[in-house]
């Protein structure tokens, strides 16, 4: 029984064993199957992925080449394609106090040590400002624009908290050149002052910003003008200077300079008075440079039809107001002499004969009663005499003072546009900063007849050959122009020692191409100007030096064997000293 039970027990044990074996076999098989399934799945996934990678596009956020090359802000170039302003990804120095983790000191060294090290890399930085920023523990810009080599030096300091994000910034390779035309872009990417403000939309439009905008400026002429104006300003110890070069036939502004200038690359420093544009925004009583306009109007009106006719040159008393000349030029002067010596008295008499309405019409036709035509946002409103009666006609004395450039304040740009009309055959065209296609030059409006313009070319050339503009006579360039030295109005009338010295010129006079206007604000008599403060000694030499520098570049070749014929007028002029 016992044996039976024992054998039965063994048998059951065997059966159980066989069952266990069966079970574990099944489990093993299932597990193996699972592993197989997993392997197959992985292989399939890999294959599918492989096929997907091989057959379909692999990078979802793929940008096209054109998109990658599209600048963040459009480029501005001069007329020859020289970049004046471009978008430029540059490094900036960013302080990130959390770079070393939350809590604990943000810097490895002390803020003072780091500030000192930064000061040795950026000598113009402010030590105290750096220390306060580093101590404050707030993320901030330590510097906006950093050169790669400077960035390397900062990196060598071993401070993880000093980071160099690459940011799109506005860069002006020419520095302060044409700063007033270009303007600047602030930290928020907003354009200010010049064409950056005017063209804001166009520069940011993705469809248009890929193509650079060509301005009418010529960087070389601009450089020469700024340079010589700066020199003239230093020579005469003047407060400021302004200059403009204008194409007489198209109205394109080849150069426009207002000194002292600013550096648009440092937009953080641009919030000051230097952004003020003296050429388009400041109005001045420009003085004698207006006389040729009066004379041209008088020639057109038939008032001056005999150049030999002499006018008395003794001080003129009109209603209690006496018109003087700077010197006594003798008993009488004819018109060429009056211009050469810059006689207020004779010009006033001519204007008196011409009459206020005619002179006013001419001035208005030259745009002297409205803001100058230019794209810049800063345009000064002229002080145009309002007149006494309903039609706005001027009083007799107003006509007379306006004739020699007083009692009316305009910008140097007004003057340049008027001179262009004076010499180009009589057609006034709006000044523009955009490059003009020669086939689409604006028609303009006729202000002077072609014959009056031809006569004025002769007279302006005579002023430079024999008169006050001698120092502007660049040899071979046939310069013609007129000086103007106007006293600035002060609290108690005109101030004798504060002058606006202007020289408005055009060259070459036998076929005028460009008008050059140079103006100095409050020049002083210095050794360099022979102790004189009038335009003949400071503004005229500026033009005399600018013209030879820009002429050949602008296609005007100096030629000693060409000139405008003044043989019919030169016998009329005696010798004497002018203003």
């Amino acid at each position: 029984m016992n044996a039976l039970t024992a054998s039965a027990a063994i048998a059951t044990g065997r059966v159980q064993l066989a069952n266990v074996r069966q079970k574990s076999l099944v489990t093993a098989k299932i597990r193996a199957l699972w592993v197989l399934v997993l392997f197959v799945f992985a292989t399939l996934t890999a294959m599918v992925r492989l096929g997907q990678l091989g057959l379909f596009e692999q990078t979802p956020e793929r940008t096209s080449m054109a998109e990658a090359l599209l600048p963040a802000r459009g480029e501005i170039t001069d007329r020859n394609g020289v970049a004046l302003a471009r978008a430029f990804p540059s490094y900036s120095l960013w302080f990130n106090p959390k770079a070393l983790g939350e809590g604990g000191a943000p810097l490895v060294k002390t803020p003072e040590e780091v500030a000192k090290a930064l000061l040795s890399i950026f000598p113009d930085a402010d030590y105290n400002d750096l220390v306060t920023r580093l101590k404050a523990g707030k993320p901030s810009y330590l510097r906006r624009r950093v050169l790669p080599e400077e960035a390397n030096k900062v990196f060598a300091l071993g401070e993880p908290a000093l980071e160099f994000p690459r940011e799109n910034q506005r860069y002006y390779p020419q520095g302060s050149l044409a700063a007033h035309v270009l303007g600047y872009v602030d930290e928020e990417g907003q354009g200010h002052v010049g064409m950056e403000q005017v063209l804001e939309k166009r520069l940011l439009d993705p469809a248009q910003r890929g193509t650079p905008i060509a301005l009418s400026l010529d960087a070389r002429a601009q450089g020469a003008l700024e340079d010589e104006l700066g020199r003239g300003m230093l020579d005469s110890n003047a407060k400021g200077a302004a200059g403009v070069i204008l194409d007489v036939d198209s109205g394109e502004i080849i150069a426009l300079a207002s000194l002292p200038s600013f550096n648009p690359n440092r937009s953080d420093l641009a919030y000051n008075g230097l952004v003020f544009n003296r050429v388009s925004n400041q109005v001045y009583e420009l003085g004698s440079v207006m006389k040729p306009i009066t004379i041209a109007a008088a020639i057109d009106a038939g008032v001056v039809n005999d150049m030999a006719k002499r006018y008395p040159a003794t001080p003129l008393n009109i209603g209690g107001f006496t018109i003087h000349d700077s010197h006594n030029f003798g008993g009488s002067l004819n018109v060429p002499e009056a211009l050469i010596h810059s006689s207020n008295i004779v010009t006033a008499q001519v204007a008196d004969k011409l009459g206020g309405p005619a002179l006013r019409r001419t001035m208005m036709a030259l745009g002297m009663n409205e803001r100058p035509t230019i794209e810049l946002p800063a345009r000064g409103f002229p002080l145009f005499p309002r007149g006494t009666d309903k039609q706005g006609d001027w009083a007799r004395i107003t006509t007379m003072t306006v004739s020699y450039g007083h009692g009316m304040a305009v910008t140097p740009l007004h003057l340049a546009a008027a001179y262009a009309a004076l010499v180009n055959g009589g057609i006034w065209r709006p000044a523009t900063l955009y490059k003009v296609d020669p086939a689409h030059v604006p028609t303009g409006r006729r202000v002077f007849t072609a014959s009056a313009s031809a006569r004025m070319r002769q007279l302006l050339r005579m002023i430079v050959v024999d008169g006050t503009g001698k120092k502007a006579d660049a040899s071979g360039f046939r310069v013609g122009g007129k000086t103007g030295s106007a006293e600035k109005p002060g609290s108690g009338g005109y101030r004798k020692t504060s002058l606006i010295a202007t020289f408005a010129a055009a060259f070459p006079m036998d076929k005028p191409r460009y008008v050059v206007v140079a103006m100095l604000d409050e020049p002083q008599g210095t050794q360099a100007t022979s102790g004189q403060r009038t335009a003949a000694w400071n503004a005229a030499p500026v033009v005399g030096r600018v013209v030879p520098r820009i002429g050949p570049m602008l296609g005007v070749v100096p030629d000693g064997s060409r000139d405008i014929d003044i043989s019919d007028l030169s016998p009329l002029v005696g010798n004497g000293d002018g203003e």
Partner: protein
Amino acid sequence: MIVTANRLRSIGWVALLALCAALVMILAFRVNALRSQVHRAELRIVALKQEKMYLETEFETRANQQQLKAWNDVEFGYVAPTAGQYLENERQLAAWSKPSELDAPTPIRVASADDSVIAQAAFPAMASPISGKAVADEKPAGGPDEPAAKVLDHAAATAALGERLGTVGHVEKPKVAQKDKSGDKVADKSSAAKPAKPKEAKSTPKQAKAEKPAAAKTKSASASKPAKPAAKGTKLAANETKRKESQGK
């Protein structure tokens, strides 16, 4: 047998399908490989272009007008070229070959007479560096008083050129003989070809006074051959050059 053939055919179809699929796969893989190559090339182009822009900007910054001026002041001292450094044409060059006499006046061509017509006919017009067009073309016709675009009158131009040659000869003494000789020579040459022409050339000073009718006459006379006067104009210049060359030898 039939079954085997059927099976064989279906196996063949499957094989063909597999082969096509494999080929398509290969093609697709190659296309995509090429595509990513292009993409990489584009990335490289972008990187290089940006690099170029950096370098250009750096160059422009280092060579900006103010910097160049500063260098010129310190280092080079270049000045703008003067009138004496330019020669407008062969005639000016030839003028250097003979010294002028002591009391000879300086030859100045004044701009009182409109010589644009002559300039156009005899010499190529001065091209503007800005537009690349002739300077005269740049000036637009303005308001109502502005004369309409001048019609090129070759006959008048040639006549006026003759006049100018005469004028220059008078002004500068040592060149009188030379210029007159040249005039004769030109006349001789042209007379060999066309006997009627030298008269025109000689009568130019008078013609210039009554330019319009004379011009009209010449025009009507040479109506059948409108190209001739112009050809003569260029011939004049060409002869002049030839003469100078032979003189130089």
